[in-house]
């Protein structure tokens, strides 16, 4: 039986309980035997991206110790957090050290959710039904650092009764950027407003993304704009059977 470890990410942990439950159910339905290491906290990206490399290492070690107990693949619902582990963990330790070997090992078996489904399990249809007009926001790290250009759309394409509508400037950042939202809140707001305007203009009633960070930002922006467009994580859409969001 295929085994995998759940990497829930700190934003998922704090804000998206139902998304994590859906992720668990979807993976189990595909026959994946899941392990959840409870010692996991955050991948350390907020510290790393803000220049606190020394402070990042301690967090990284906690993560690696938590996931080193099993050699199963590690699957997370965020391209950004997965990219941190996959691309930046090995940079944090000098080559030749045991920490570097561990980081390299962990990095090689960490996957973003849609990447794991489409590219590892080779499944494109999760049997979802979602009779709505849906548009898609391509999250920056998911798209550019992970290079995941087609995976999300492949999965959406298989959803029954779903009508896909394109989003103008789909690949433009929504203004999240982690600590950027509190460092330069006005710029973040301007970027978010642009994104929200385009989502509304798309004519969709649902916008999906593969990133909890973008989701928090876009959902909040839509609420603030008085829109009833539903912002959801792709996992929640893929878990939908009745079209009831």
């Amino acid at each position, binding site marked *: 039986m295929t085994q995998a470890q759940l990497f829930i990410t700190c934003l998922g942990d704090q804000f998206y309980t139902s998304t994590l439950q859906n992720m668990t159910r979807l993976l189990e339905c595909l026959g994946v035997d899941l392990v959840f290491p409870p010692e996991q906290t*955050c991948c350390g990206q907020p510290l790393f991206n803000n220049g606190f490399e020394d402070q990042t290492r301690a967090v990284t070690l*906690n993560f690696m110790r938590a996931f080193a107990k099993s050699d199963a693949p590690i699957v997370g619902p965020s391209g950004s957090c997965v990219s941190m582990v996959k691309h930046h963990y090995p940079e944090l330790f000098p080559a030749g050290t045991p920490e570097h070997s561990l980081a390299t090992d962990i990095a090689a078996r960490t996957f973003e959710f849609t990447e794991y489904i489409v590219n590892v399990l080779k499944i494109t249809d999760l049997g979802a039904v979602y009779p709505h007009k849906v548009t898609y926001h391509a999250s920056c790290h998911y798209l550019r650092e992970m290079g995941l250009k087609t995976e999300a759309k492949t999965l959406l394409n298989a959803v029954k009764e779903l009508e896909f509508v394109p989003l103008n400037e789909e690949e433009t950042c929504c203004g999240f950027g982690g600590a950027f939202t509190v460092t330069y809140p006005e710029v973040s707001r301007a970027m978010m407003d642009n994104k929200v305007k385009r989502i509304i203009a798309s004519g969709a009633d649902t916008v999906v993304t593969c990133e909890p960070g973008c989701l928090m930002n876009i959902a*909040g922006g839509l609420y603030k704009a008085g829109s009833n467009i539903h912002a959801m994580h792709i996992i929640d859409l893929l878990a939908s059977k009745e079209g009831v969001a």
Partner: protein
Amino acid sequence: MSDDTHTYIGFEEYSEHVPPSIPSAVQQATSRFVDGRAARVAELPQWEELRQIGSDIRLHTIENMDVYLTRFETAVQAAGGIAHWASTAEDARQIVLQIAKEHNVKLAVKSKSMATEEIGLNHALEAAGIEALETDLGEYIIQLAGTGPSHIIVPAVHLKKEEIAALFSKKLHIDAPADPIELARIAREILREKFLAAGMGISGANFLVAETGTLVIVTNEGNGRMCTTMPELHVAVVGIDKVIPDWESLTVFLKLLARSATGQKLSTYTQFITGPRQAEGEFGPKEFHIVLLDNGRSKILKDPIGRDVLKCIRCGACANVCPVYKNVGGFAYGSFISGPIGAILSPQMLGMPTARELPYASTLCGACADVCPVKIPIPTILRHLRRRVAQGDDFATPTMPALIHATAGLVSLALAQNWIYRLGTRLLPFFMRIFKRDGWIPSAPYPLSRWTKARPLPPFTASFRQWWNVRSTKGKE
């Protein structure tokens, strides 16, 4: 390090008061360049290969800059030109002033140049009683407005045609219509007189071809050609990073530059200048000087990560796609160079005490690195400079405010000692419940108040761990 004391660059302060006309003008103009670039790139199947070659040549050149600069200098001298070395901005200004004084220059006409913006040459000339007139239309506009450029290749990108018409009317005491063609005609008429009267032409350069000592200037308006051929004296001020090995490498950069910058296959004018005129009757000035400007570049070269900024060919593509730049405009970056490239150059050139806010002026979305024609890893350098701010390195001591530094230490502790994090995860939903209204947290305590300034926060649910535990003991539903 620049010798000039530069005022502190308050990106945050500026970003709180961006004039609303700026993002709208900037977004309109940059979108055209983005679309144009995409169309040109799509026509070239070998685009990615070309970028890689461009990147390799630039890296090779900056790694061997001493060799190529010496070769360039020798070739310039062989062609009858005079090369000067300026280690600081002040040195460069003094060299130009000295040349102007020796030739009794009263009026200088200028072709668009980032290097002269960098050293503030116009002010120095004016202080010495020499009129310096910008002849690139965009530069002419911002000179009238009394500001610096807000974009590398489109200095007046922040202004709409109506604002330019109002500026012309006010400064030139005419009734200028908001019609780009008419505005260009007005400027052209004024500039033509000046080209004929000027005692000195000043330019920068896009490239310096080391093998022949040739200056390459790429323009769309033809003013560069006028500035460098009509006056009897031509002085070019060029950053030492502009050197490239030979003409073969130039063909790569000419293919990359115009496509990345304006979405053209080639700019309207590509000009090659090798020394002064060789004989009476030939085009070109009698005397040709080049000021090779260091101004901190050789120091940047010592940083194995940061030095990649010197690969830049100043196309502006990174700014055109940058969602931060598009919402704040170029003045937010507080220096002659703006956008993502400014955010990685200014901190290295001006020092962290002046520019420590700039490396954070990015969401690290990576759009800039995707379009950079010479593959400068901008997000990597931004992170590198953030590290310099937060914890210091061989080049600078930390400049991060102590409170933020202490907070990062506490965050690190809480995330590394997972029992603290897990305890927090249990407590936070209860604590945050008091701020919950209508399924959201519309205003949260500091520092999350900076988040809720712009949009509400979703409520803290944090019950996956409990759900998992219950499920593990009682079985799956």
